């Protein structure tokens, strides 16, 4: 592709305007990696893949979803039963959420046993832990949105968990719910976090993660 003697006309055209060729080559055809990197090194890229799938399917779900206690359940039912391919989008999104957690955990265990977090990669690890936490919270907030018995009581137990923390415990429970019990206020709050705040934060931390990985390169196998 870019390494061929004769580059494409488009690339030459771009080269004259952006001097892009060297940069492109460095990141594609001339990019070097340590020898013998194996299949486990795919787990980070697959975590990114599933995140992108979640964003795309999530946007489609948002076109029909209604974040109120009265309408939420019915709007999901409508997506699954009436909207063309709605069932597929909804199923991929919900199974994808669990898959993403499993992939991110697997990637984390890979990095752990390869000792790929030590100097100079401390910040790769720290940004990774933030990505892991954000992934969990995104799943948790999304789980409430269909407003089923499972999601309602799941959110009730989940938001109750910080309650036993000293001093700020009660406050955290109240802030996460927006009311005494899980209610419509909780639903809109979780909705805003789930569709805007958390995905934006994941994108930012993933960007940081990737820039650093590009700078150091990956750590080779032992």
């Amino acid at each position, binding site marked *: 592709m870019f390494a061929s003697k004769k580059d494409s006309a488009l690339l030459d055209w771009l080269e004259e305007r952006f001097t892009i060729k060297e940069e492109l080559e460095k990141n594609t055809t001339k990019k070097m990696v340590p020898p013998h990197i194996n299949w486990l090194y795919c787990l980070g890229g697959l975590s990114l893949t599933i995140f992108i799938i979640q964003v795309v399917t999530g946007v489609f779900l948002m076109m029909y979803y209604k974040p109120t206690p009265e309408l939420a359940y019915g709007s999901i039912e409508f997506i699954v039963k009436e909207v063309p391919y709605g069932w597929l989008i909804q199923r991929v999104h919900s199974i994808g959420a669990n898959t993403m957690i499993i992939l991110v955990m697997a990637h984390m265990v890979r990095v752990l046993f390869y000792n790929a977090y030590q100097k100079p990669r401390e910040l790769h690890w720290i940004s990774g832990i933030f990505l892991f936490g954000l992934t*969990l919270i995104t799943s948790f907030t999304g789980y409430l949105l269909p407003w089923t018995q499972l999601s309602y009581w799941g959110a009730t137990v989940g938001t109750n968990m910080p309650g036993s923390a000293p001093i700020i415990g009660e406050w955290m429970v109240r802030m996460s719910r927006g009311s005494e019990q899980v209610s419509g206020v909780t639903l809109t709050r979780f909705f805003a976090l789930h569709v805007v705040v958390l995905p934006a934060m994941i994108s930012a931390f993933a960007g940081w993660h990737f820039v650093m990985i590009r700078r150091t390169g990956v*750590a080779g196998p032992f």
Partner: protein
Amino acid sequence: MAVDNNSKSTDTNHEEPFYPHELLKFGVAFFVFLAVLFTLTIFLPHGIHEPADPMNTPAHIKPEWYFLAPYQMLKIVPNELAGMAVQGILGLAILFLPFWEKSKRRHPAKRPIFTPVCIVVISAFIALTLWGKYS
């Protein structure tokens, strides 16, 4: 951004081209992963869920699977505060792992303390998750 050059990496010799073989490897992983995801999507049973009823608390309420381990731990530790403290310390220890775990050895077989500790922590997480699920 400054020009990125992997060959300047501080600790490994980056000497194998990424393109095309390593990229192809990821391509294979990518399509296998998509195949698995869509197979699950089509063949996993579709649960029928009832709409939420805040007036009616079900008998066994539990968080989602990924919160079961910490949930179950809080349940079995007699003192809630102690349980929270242990979890907080564990969380911070994991967050700051690269700053206190600095042994130069890399191969798991050559790390007689670290490797068993990791295996115990991961096994405990799985055991607590299963315990939470089936209790």
